[in-house]
Every structure is written in structure tokens, then in C-alpha cells.
């Protein structure tokens, strides 16, 4: 079935099946491969995107449920809230992840950053433990999370 939705500020059309998930729509139909799949069952957070302002595991959401709604992915983050569409821009959270050293293999990173974005949108100055709780659904096997929390703290400052 055909659906229309807004992805990263642009209206997109897609022809999806009833069981197509949002992450499949993003990755396979729209070529937005920045969103990762680590488990496919809502257990790792690698596929986290923002749906109408809320963080969701896009592997658990059906594409058809997203008709008429707004999706923000890692590719659109730099421009989030901005009018221009200039390439090469970075969101403060992205900059913080790079500068603090919160990225290792990088596979968890897009999902982690989207969870951080959702947190800071609702709580601009979170405590360390609030940050830890907010990303506790995003698994990272490389970093031990310390620098990830550091980066989110830095971006919130």
C-alpha cells in the first residue's frame, strides 16, 4: 500500500507491505542506511529514530503506522529545527560524540545519538543518572558507556 510521511523534513512516498517495518522503509525503500539494525526485536536501540517527537525502535514500528507522521533520523539530525538544508552541518550532540571520543565501532552511535536528542528535547539539562537512564535501552558493546554519557552531558551544557 502507498503511504506518505515526512522524513527529515521532506515529504516521502513509499509502497510498503503490511508487515514492512519503519526501519525497512528507511533503509531499503528510502536508502537511509544511517539507522542500524542490531537485533530486529526492540532489544538493542540501534534502530532508534524520532517519530512525532518521540524516540522509537524503528524495527518495532510498522511502516503503515507512520503514514502522515513525521520521522527524524540520524541523516536529518543536523538540520533538525533549522530551515536550511546545507550539507556538512553537525548537530551539537554529534559534535560532542566526536570530540569526547564516544564513538568506537560506531554501530550503536546513530541510535544512541537519537535517544540523546529525544532526551535533550524534553530535558535540556539532565543529570548524569537521567542520561544513563535515557540511553539504557541503547546497547553499546565497545565503550562501556562512560564517554557516551560524557558526550551527552557536554551537548546539554
Amino acid at each position, binding site marked *: 500500500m502507498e503511504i506518505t510521511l515526512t522524513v527529515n523534513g521532506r515529504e516521502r512516498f513509499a509502497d510498503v507491505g503490511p508487515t514492512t517495518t519503519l526501519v525497512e522503509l528507511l*533503509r531499503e525503500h528510502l536508502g537511509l542506511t544511517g539507522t542500524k539494525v542490531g537485533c530486529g526485536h526492540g532489544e538493542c536501540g540501534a534502530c532508534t529514530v524520532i517519530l512525532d517527537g518521540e524516540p522509537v525502535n524503528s524495527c518495532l514500528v510498522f511502516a503503515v503506522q507512520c503514514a502522515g507522521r513525521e520521522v527524524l533520523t*540520524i541523516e536529518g539530525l543536523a538540520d533538525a529545527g533549522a530551515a536550511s538544508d546545507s550539507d556538512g552541518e553537525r548537530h551539537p550532540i554529534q559534535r560532542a*560524540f566526536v570530540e569526547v571520543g564516544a564513538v568506537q565501532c560506531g*554501530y550503536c552511535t546513530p541510535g544512541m545519538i537519537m535517544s540523546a536528542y529525544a532526551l535533550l528535547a524534553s530535558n535540556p539539562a539532565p543529570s548524569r543518572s537521567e542520561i544513563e537512564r535515557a540511553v539504557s535501552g541503547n546497547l553499546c558493546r565497545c565503550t562501556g558507556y562512560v564517554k557516551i*554519557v560524557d558526550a551527552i552531558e557536554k551537548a546539554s551544557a
Partner: protein
Amino acid sequence: MSDRDDTGGPPEISSARVGSPAIRVDADDKSTGRAVYVDDLTFPGMLHAALVYPGCAHARLLGVRPDEAIRTPGVRAVLTAQDVPGENQVGVLRSYPDQPLLPHDTVRYSGDAVAIVVADTGALAREAARSVRVDLEELPGVFDAVEAMEPNAPRVHPEREDDDDRGLVGNVFLRERVRKGDVDAGFEEADIIVERTFRTHHQEHAYLEPLGAIAVPGEGSSVTVYGTMQCPYYVQKAVATALGVPLADVRVIQTVTGGGFGGKEDVPSEICACAAVAAAKVGKPVKLVYTREEDFERSSKRHPMTVTYRLGATIDGTFTAADIRIVADAGAYSTLTPIVVFRATAHATGPYEIPNVRTDAYGVYTNRQTTGAFRGFGQPQTIFASESVVDEIACALGIDPIEIRVRNGLAVGKRTATDHLLDESVGLPETLRIARERSGWDEKREAFAGDAGRVRRGIGVGAIYYGVSLGARGLAIDGSGAHVEIEPDGSVRVAIGGTEMGQGLHTVLAQIVSDSLGAPMHAIHIGHVDTSLVPDSGPSVASRTTLMSGNAVLDAVAKLRESMAPVAADVLGVTAEDVEFGPGRVGTRERSVTFAELAAECHARDVATVADGWYKAPVTTFDEDGQGDAYAVYSFATQVAEVEVDTETGAVALVRVTAAHDVGKVLNPVTLEGQVQGGVLQGAGMALYEIMKTEGGRIVTPDFATYILPTSVDVPEIEVAFVEEPYSKGPFGAKGIGETPAMPGAAAIANAVSHATGIRFRELPLTAERVKLALG
């Protein structure tokens, strides 16, 4: 958080000298979603593959009936053992040819896939794979290594002939030993002897990116394979073997790799060979990516080990003898077990000088998932045993646990269990000193002992050593190559044989090139491994990659400097000997050119600006009795763990870890610290949370809902400290760090829990149930 104003381009990669913090060269791509992992790649006409599983752990394979699957629209082919055009063998060690790519007569574990289905989409392929009928006659299985050693145990490889002389009987396919001094005499001298048996469990790597591969057929019989992997040269050999084509026809390109930890050492050979065989059959690109559940089934695990450790000491705490027995569960195939068991055997005493040592280790087949490389490579298990017994002896003698480690610990001039006389770069004493000081050990050890309430605190220590690189029993090539090419605009292309899997290799190599060649960091472009660019450089394992690729790059850079220095001298009117290659500029203090200017000048004068580098590790030895300089150099570490145990629930909270690591030389303090923090949490996972449960050999914890990994709320306070005892043959003195952060944790945590509760735990993980049960 302000939004628009702070937004800007990517953080600039400024040049960072070796030893100073450098921003990762790949962090921007990874944090913007631009980094291309294998599943992000697609090729025109690409088809998708899925594997067919047997559904049981041990069975005679009578036949595979794909008829229904093949009739499904969109299904292009179903391949079985007969369709493997070359040799149907995939194990990495050619001396143990026990693992078919696709089994043809016997299924030996539940992940032993018997067929490959190729279809238009991944979903279709997986659905069709489920409809393939597999005719099996189930056989009794054996799921525990100690049971598998019993004379009447079901045999996993009945085709193997017993070798009574070497004690290789039944499921025991491997023995290693160390014989040093006179163990009986050593125990005679002892005033105290402690003997205990310990058990460890399967641990899953759980790298976040599942295994995946794409094979693209090329001209003639050639094929290009893309995949997530640590060891592209293993993959090249495995694909050539399975296809029956020359190595030169197989090009392997590593994609951005989402974590490895050892789990992507040999295992990618299987998935890549499956994709390649399928692609050869259908003549189109074929992608095969595992689901997380498949990854659990098909990837290797940390070996479960049963370790019996007997240690003798005199009244003043001097160790006199150790007698150690290690039984390692290899799972259904040998894979890397011979190398893992070699390492476990060589290091089994822990980092102590013990004059008399007897170690016997056994590699045993079971009908379980295969076990192989995992950060620490067989050592975290034996360390749990040795460090627990060392602690017990210290406590029994009334000696402080760190003190007894200092007294017996390795230092320059001391000898390891393999009788290796250490002559340089031994940072153990310093890591013990720093860990003691920074953790507040002395005060806490005393203060916590007084706890009597519901929550009891404890502090414990673990010390380790780790032979860097492959060592004497390594069977892969212990050399590494590099190719460095300077473009006319001064940008530098670096091709290496070692893999970036998240650890930060590309960044430290860029620092090394920048520092030694004079090119600014942002001008240096380091690519993922492409086997067509650099010769076989061995595996990226064993904490060897910075050392090996770093030295190979330095070798190439030395050649470039030699050809470029006269040009700089001529341009500047100085002598070539006085020309220095500093960061960004080349020349003398008074007169210099930018690196880009020099590059342009060299090109204008037809001076070659390309060079290959090679580094070969020193030769090491390990004789029949396990004696020799088993590894060229060792990394050392001490970790101190602080816990709080809730005596009502048994729950153990890890509060603080102090990690002191001797790395030879810190190349990039930021990435190094990150590697240690991550390793500390993996050690905590092994100690406290992670357990893979099986029933009849089938995994019943095949996902992250049931296999519990530490999350952001489980992170202790982690203090990382580095010791720099330079290694004379390392790049800038560096040794290796990959493995050691994950090694001492389980032992330190178990010792801390024992300090808190007075109870010694000899089986991991220390789940609340287990602790509660012991507390009564």
C-alpha cells in the same frame, strides 16, 4: 542546549602528535550515519541468501529436500554440500580439517547449517529456508567438556582416530603442557597448599553489528567479497578453498566493522565462503546477513573452562609450585581452540614467577556452539582460577593480596612459567602500585572488612599478563604490510593489512604517519583492508595490530623520507641529513617547506613518492614441555574492583573499578581510555550478568532480552591509569591493549565479592541467585 548557533561543520581533525589526544578519523562518518557497514551496501542485481538449520545438535544427516522451497517464486537456488565447488572445509587451522562449510553426513551442533537458499529478497530467502526439509536421524549429544572426556561419552567426531601415545582419545583432540622445574619438590617446600576447581561459562561477543557478507562475482572465476571482519586474509583463504580457485582470484574488502572482540576473527570465513559459493552458483552478487539469533548460533563464544588450580607457598608468601589442569570446551569443531589453549596454557600461572610448574590442558569436542577468540583469548578463565587461589593463600597467610602479588609478580630479570627471562618492558609492579594507590586499597580493605549490615562492601584485585601478538604456536603469518602513497597535493593514502574494528587503529596510524612523515593528520587517508593492496598481514588479533601495522607503516615512511629528504635539502639549500619531518612541515628549524609543497616538488622531479613497508615479529619458541620465550613481549594490567553485596537479595553492585594498564607507550590517550572502559564493562558482564543457557545444545537465551548485557545504568565509576614501560621494538615503544582491559575484571570482582561476604565463588557469573544461595 542551544540549537542553531552551535551547529557547524565536522569537528576539525587537528594534527595530534603521538601521545596526545586525537579525534578519531572515522568518528564524523559514524556519527552522521555515513559510515558504510556491510548491510548498508547493495549491488545491481544483488540476491539474498539464508541458511537452513538442522533444528537439533547432533544427528546423522540423511538428506536435504529443497523441492518445496525451490518452487517458491523468487527463490533462485538451494545449495547443499555437493554444491561446494572446491574443498568443503572452512576451519582456519589447516592442520585440523574437521569443519565442513556445509555438513554432508553429520550435524554436530545446532548452528551447523546444512544448506543455503538464494532468493530475491532476504525475507523470501529466510522463509524459503524454513520450508526446506532436512532428514535427520538424531544422535545422543554431549554438551559438557568434562562429561565429553568420559570413555562412554558420545563422540562428536567418530571419524577421528585415537592417538593413544599423545593422549588424544575420544573427544579429546588437543593437549598442551608446561613442565618447569620439579613440581613435587616445590610442593614439599610449601607451608601451605590450596587446591580448588573453577568453572566458567560461554560468553557471547555481542558486537552490535551482526555478521554479514556480500560476494560479487567478477571476470572468470574471480570474486570480490565484502564483509564485517577482523581477518580479511583468513577470509581470502577460506573463499579460495571453498571455490577451488587461486588466492589471486579472491579479493576481500573489509567494510566498516561494528565491533569484533575476537568474534570476527575466524567466523567471518564461514559466512563469506557461504556467500561466495552461492554467488558463484547464481552468477550474481549475493548478500548474507545473520539475524541476531543466527549470530548467537553461528558465532564463536568464550570457551567454558574447568580449571583445577593447586598452588603452594611458603609462610612468607613465596610461591613454590603450581599444578594446573585446564579443560576447554571447544564445541563441535576445533576452530581456534588449539591457539586459545596454547595461550591459556602458557599464561596459566598468572603473572608470577613460580619455579616449579606443571600445566596440562585439554581441548575437548562437544555438541555445543564453537568457541574461539574472545578478548583475553582463553586467559580470563584461567585468571579467575589463579587470581582466586592467590587471594585465598594471601588471606590464609595474613598477607595483603596486593602485597603477595608484588612479592611474586613478574619483573625485569624474572622468569615466566615458560622460563622466559624477561629483559624489558615489564610494567606489572607499577600497575600494582598505581592500582593500590588510586583505588584507596589500604583504607578500604580495612574499612570494608568491618561491614556487618545488610549491604556489605568488598574490594578485590586481579593482575594479569598477556603475550602480545601470535606467539610461538601461532599458525598465521606473523608479519604485516603497509603501502603508503603520496599524491602531488600532499594527501597521503595509506593501505594496511590490519583491520579497524572500532578500536581506533586508523586514528593512531594517522598519528604515527603524521608524526613521522610530516603530513598533517587531515591529509592522511587510511582505508579499510583490501587484500589486493597489501600482502597477507596475518590476523588483527592478539593485541598485535598497532604494533604490527604501526611498524609496517614506519618502515614505509622511512623509505619515503629517504627519497624525499634530498629534494627538501635541495629546495632549502641545507644538507639532507639535517632535514627533519615534523608535523606539517619538513626541513630545519630555520628553513622549511610545507609537506604539500615538498610532495609537489617530488612529483615535479619524478621522485617516487610511494613505498611499501613490512614488519616481521621476532621468532619465539615453545617446546614440547612448554618452555621457551613464548611471546616476544607482554602487556600487564592490574584492576581493583569495589562491590556492594546486598545480603538479602544476593545482588552484587559494581561500584568502582581502578584499571592500571602497562601499554608500553600511550599513542592516543582518548581512544585508549575508551578501549579500557569498554573492556572493564565486558569483564563485568562475564563476572555478573552474562550467561548463555542451552537445552540439548540449543541456545535458549538467543537474544538481548534473555542474554543480559551490561547497560548504561550498570556502569561503575572507572578510573583508568596508564603505565609506559616502552618496548624497544614497538612503534614509539607501544605494545598492545586490545585484550587486557577485559581480562582481570572477573577475577577482581569475584575477589571483591569474597572480601564482602567471606565466601569464595568458584563458578561464574555471580548472579543474585547464585550469591543468595551461597549466603544461605
